């Protein structure tokens, strides 16, 4: 069954508000390290995730809060992770860039650009070898397309007919380097021509378009072919908390904000589907409650003991890790 636009609106809003709260928590010093916000790009995660099944696998980047939430991960566990708590989805070991939930086949948050792509290919290979008709969806940015690993992985997936959905979130910038300054061919979906892989471009600011395009793509992938979907989108915030944003103009940002996937969808729903201000307020309230609970959970959660430092380096050791 197709997700209702209203449900998708709420999911996007949930991601937006969550990240706004993260930004506050960062300023207040509760969250540290890097924090890469997804604000502006929510339609991609929400639209794409609805086209996947629970048994499918997801591989993401350091900008993965949206993917994690859209995949159904617990907001409290994510917030606790960023607070560095033992109850975090990665037990506080990973932080913002390394969210994991094996139970949802959410295989992480990779902070080396393009580093997750070969892993996604391997997950798909396991599915193929085990005769499972799962899809592995791999999210990455426009910048990642310049990395050799992307090309090696794409060739391998095409050659071995692996069920990988390559989902490129083209937000026009790799950090501060604009697309036309890092890619000779800025129509990124044309990259697949070197591999005989089918591709499509979709408006990444339109959640229903993303959902529909991803569903078409996933249908192809599930039959045993990779597919490359390029979602054109934009991040409204800085690249990370350290970014002075010298490389783009306010006008450009404003022009894209006019395409805000949340704003446009809620406007449309009001106009066409009778969404009311009261409905919106209810959504906001529910979301704020969830966020408040997540923050409370994160705050109240214990820190792992430093006695546990060497846990999870290797499994409960068959071989004892030698520590001098």
């Amino acid at each position, binding site marked *: 069954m197709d997700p209702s636009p209203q449900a998708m609106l709420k999911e996007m809003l949930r991601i937006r508000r969550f990240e706004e709260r993260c930004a506050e928590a960062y300023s207040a010093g509760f969250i540290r390290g890097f924090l890469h916000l997804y604000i502006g790009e929510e339609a991609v995660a929400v639209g794409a995730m609805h086209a996947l099944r629970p048994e499918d696998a997801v591989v993401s980047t350091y900008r993965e809060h949206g993917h994690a939430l859209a995949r159904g991960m617990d907001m409290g566990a994510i917030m606790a992770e960023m607070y560095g708590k033992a109850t975090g989805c990665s037990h506080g070991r990973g932080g913002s860039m390394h969210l994991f939930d094996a139970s949802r086949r959410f295989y992480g948050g990779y902070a080396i650009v393009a580093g997750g792509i070969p892993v996604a290919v391997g997950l798909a290979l396991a599915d193929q070898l085990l005769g499972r008709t799962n899809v592995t969806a791999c999210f990455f940015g426009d910048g990642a397309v310049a990395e050799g690993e992307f090309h090696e992985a794409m060739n391998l997936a095409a050659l071995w007919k692996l069920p990988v959905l390559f989902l490129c979130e083209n937000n026009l910038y790799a950090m501060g380097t604009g697309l036309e300054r890092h890619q000779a061919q800025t129509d990124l979906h044309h990259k697949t021509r070197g591999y005989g892989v089918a591709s499509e471009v979709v408006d990444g600011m339109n959640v229903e378009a993303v959902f529909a395009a991803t569903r078409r793509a996933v249908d192809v992938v599930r039959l045993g072919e990779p597919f490359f979907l390029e979602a054109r989108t934009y991040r409204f915030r800085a690249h990370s908390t350290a970014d002075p944003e010298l490389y783009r103009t306010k006008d450009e940002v404003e022009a894209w904000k006019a395409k805000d996937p949340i704003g446009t969808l809620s406007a449309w729903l009001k106009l066409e589907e009778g969404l009311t201000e009261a409905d919106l307020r209810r959504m906001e309230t529910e979301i704020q409650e969830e966020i408040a609970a997540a923050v409370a959970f994160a705050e109240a959660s214990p820190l792992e003991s430093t006695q546990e430092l060497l846990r999870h*380096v290797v499994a409960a050791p068959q071989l004892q*890790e030698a520590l001098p």
Partner: protein
Amino acid sequence: MGTTTTYREAIRASLRLALQRDPKVFLMGEDVGRYGGAFAVSKGLLEEFGPERVRDTPLSESAFVGAGIGAAIGGVRPIVEVMTINFSLLALDQVVNNAATLRHMSGGQIGVPLVVRMATGGGRQMAAQHSHSLEGWYAHIPGIRVAVPATVTDAFGMLQAALLEPDPVFIFEHATLYPMEGTLDESPVDLSRAAIRRDGRDLTLITFGGSLPKTLQAAERLAQEGVDAEVVDLRMLRPLDMDTVLGSVARTHRAAIVDEAWRTGSFAAEVAARIQEQGFDLLDGPVLRVCSKEVPMPYAIHMERAALPQVEDILAAAQELVGHHV
């Protein structure tokens, strides 16, 4: 008990056994299939197990090592062959940042039961880009295991043992060992212990992998001169069995490490550092290192010989150790 075979055939037999026993095991790497493996290790396996389980890969080290990681997470049991350690630099990001970290970064939710095999070392006039001994770098990385089989039995057994580990195991096969003959004992091997390959009272020679034969030769020569050298084969570089090393040094009070890597930053440095840290009072003098000269490997045979540790170099170190005492 034990048949005579080569190091190469022992690995092949071990691969065959693994493929026969567990349908989830598969082998992938450059030229492991039709070519039969760059060192003929996997010859015949494609014919026996088919292209699904013996997979030739494109020249894409990063992608197929990464795919091995993903496949291991996904529930199968990949054995990845990286043709040689020289090419493994292209995949090192996947090793350091994914294979070794995923268990930790996920708070223990996922593990990477992956075996990666590769040939290592010099001595075949392959020159600067094809003669590296970088297994010491791998031994620096928490989260992975590093095995350096030096005998036919370990060549067979360490692969079997590696397939029981829930974490990535890297196996380094010194390319000069492939034709080496020896007795194969197929009983399970213990990955947690170094081995004393020769008993001796006067000094301890510590080594691993491709340097073991040279070290044993040196020990024989020393014996002729009345010096009784104990030879320790580390077998695993990570974790490192210091108990065996220190036990030997406690008896001999003198030690040298033979390691084909460039001296500065060699694994031999780690062993020396640990011996003096943990057994300073056992020592009669400094722990010495017999390593490669600090030069990209030259092609010409006499220059390559001069660059690599030779039996004579081991003898010289041993003499220095013994001299230090008298």
